[in-house]
């Protein structure tokens, strides 16, 4: 054969297959073990199939295991607020860079540099500062603030990429046609960057939902999901934790799918408008 695939194709394919196995293999183990029979332990072999660990999880009005029920809702509440703030601040910050201003480079790099600072020190620093000021940490200000130090640089980077691809002449054309800056944003820029804005909300939510290094010391009383799980895993003796893993994954996947559906329907609505006539 003349156009045989080169050796590198097979090497890279093998590498990729190994990567997939490494990524999803352990997760599949967790999902399987969450259906462990009532007699089964935290490792293979499976001793029958059952939903008993899910039942345990939801027994006693969700107080079957630790404080998972409440910490889940705390995480959702925190995640939604962080996602919304990340979107608002990220989009505004991204827009501010559409025009160069004195010190814009400094603002950009100082925001991006915070990504390389280990989260645990950011969290510790915030908590230390609060103590110096005589403030008690609480989720609605220091918790949210600590997580924003993590999600905002990402939002800014995403905005930079999206806005960087947005042709400046769209804005000029809108101005030329009489648009005020608010109209320009509403009618031209926002519709064009909408998929990216949804992406920022998603990134904001997921980065908050799994974050504990920064929030941990600054959340006040009441654990969030990752903190509660870390605590429970250390003392776990039954597969009930695997059931948590399965449910959390399902939850996150449904969010991702919902996002894709929303983005898809935006695209479809645009498509429909063309075929309507």
């Amino acid at each position, binding site marked *: 054969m003349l156009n045989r695939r080169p050796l590198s194709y097979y090497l890279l394919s093998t590498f990729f297959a190994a990567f997939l196995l490494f990524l999803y293999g352990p997760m599949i183990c967790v999902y399987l073990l969450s259906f462990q029979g009532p007699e089964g332990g935290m490792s293979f072999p499976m001793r029958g199939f059952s939903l008993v660990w899910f039942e345990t999880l939801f027994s006693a009005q969700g107080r079957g295991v630790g404080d998972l029920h409440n910490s889940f809702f705390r995480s959702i509440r925190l995640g939604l607020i962080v996602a919304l703030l990340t979107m608002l601040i990220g989009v505004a910050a991204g827009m501010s860079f559409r025009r160069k201003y004195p010190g814009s480079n400094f603002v950009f790099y100082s925001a991006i540099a915070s990504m390389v600072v280990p989260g645990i020190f950011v969290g510790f620093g915030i908590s230390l500062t609060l103590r110096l000021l005589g403030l008690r940490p609480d989720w609605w200000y220091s918790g949210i603030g600590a997580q924003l130090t993590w999600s905002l640089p990402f939002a800014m980077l995403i905005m930079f990429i999206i806005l960087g691809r947005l*042709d400046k*002449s*769209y804005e*000029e*054309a*809108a*101005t*030329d*046609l*009489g*648009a*005020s800056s608010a*109209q320009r944003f509403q*009618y*031209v820029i926002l*519709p*064009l960057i909408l998929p990216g804005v949804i992406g920022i909300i998603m990134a904001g939510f997921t980065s908050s939902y799994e974050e504990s290094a920064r929030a941990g010391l600054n959340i006040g009383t009441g654990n969030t999901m990752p903190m509660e799980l870390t605590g429970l895993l250390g003392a776990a003796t039954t597969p009930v934790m695997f059931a948590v893993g399965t449910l959390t994954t399902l939850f996150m996947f449904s969010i991702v799918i919902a996002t894709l559906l929303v983005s898809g329907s935006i695209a479809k609505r*645009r498509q429909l*408008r*063309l075929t*309507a*006539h």
Partner: protein
Amino acid sequence: MKIDTEFNAKNLVPDTEAGEPAEGTVNRFDVEMVAVSKSYDGGARAVDEISLRIPKASYCCLLGPSGCGKTTTLRMLAGHEDVTDGDVLIHDRNVTDALPAGRGTSMMFQSYALFPHLSALDNVAFSLKLKKVPKAERQARAMEFLKLVQMEELAHRMPAQLSGGQQQRVALARSLITRPKVLLLDEPLSALDPFLRVLMRSELKRIQTELGITFVHVTHSQEEALALSDMVVVMNNGKIMQAGTAREVFEKPSNTFVARFIGGHNVIEFEGRTVSVRADKCRIVEAVGGRNLPATITSIEYQGPLVRINLVTDDRKDLCAVISDTRFFADPPEVGEAVIFSWMPDDEWAFGA
């Protein structure tokens, strides 16, 4: 749907608005630029004290090589670029500091800049939407303008579903619906293939004539400028080299830059003088009573009715003669042949000196 073939362009001519000069004063120029300069951050001047008057209802081309300041000049007229120094007047009103939408101009962008999320119709209706014109009315108005550019059948297509030429028509309609006194076009034909370019060129001229407004068209194509213009403005290094009718610029270039840039000219140093001679007035036979220069043929381009012969003199100066095919095939010379390049003294142009 019945297509209204007798579309009346007169309805689309700009209204007289407040801020116009009082009745009785004669508005002689559509555009005036008075000693306009542009420099970035105190650096070199991209546009250097240019003054220009464009008469009423003219087709004006700003012509020059890339980086000559022609696009900057256009963007200053549009208000998308601040004027560093000088004044810009549209219909006798000083608009130097006016907003882009408040100066009676409309700009058509090189990339067309059609909003990709809006249909052709919504793109054209965009400026009316900003003015809160009711939907039915603005769509009807937009349709009128799509008719003007013969795009009514594709009104509901998205920009991505339109060809380059169709996108351009939509962009034109979107600009014209704002009823500009002056339409500004930034290299409008450069993205089109050569066939479409010639077609759109005559279309632009037709629309300009029908509407009776001034078009200012930036181009680097000499052919385009000569074909379209009532007025050609040749620019180089941020300065105006020459402004005049197409014929003036072609027949009487004001300096060697214009003669070379406009094409079809030989700039020859002969007996201590620099003159330009149109290539179509030059011959490759010895001329009795004419100027004769020995030269060697370097290449021959057959162009149908005409044949272009490139030559080089003994002191390595390039020359060019354009002769009719009849004359060429009567006695065809060959590449590498040593010939006499000649012209008549009457055909010399000494740049007004």
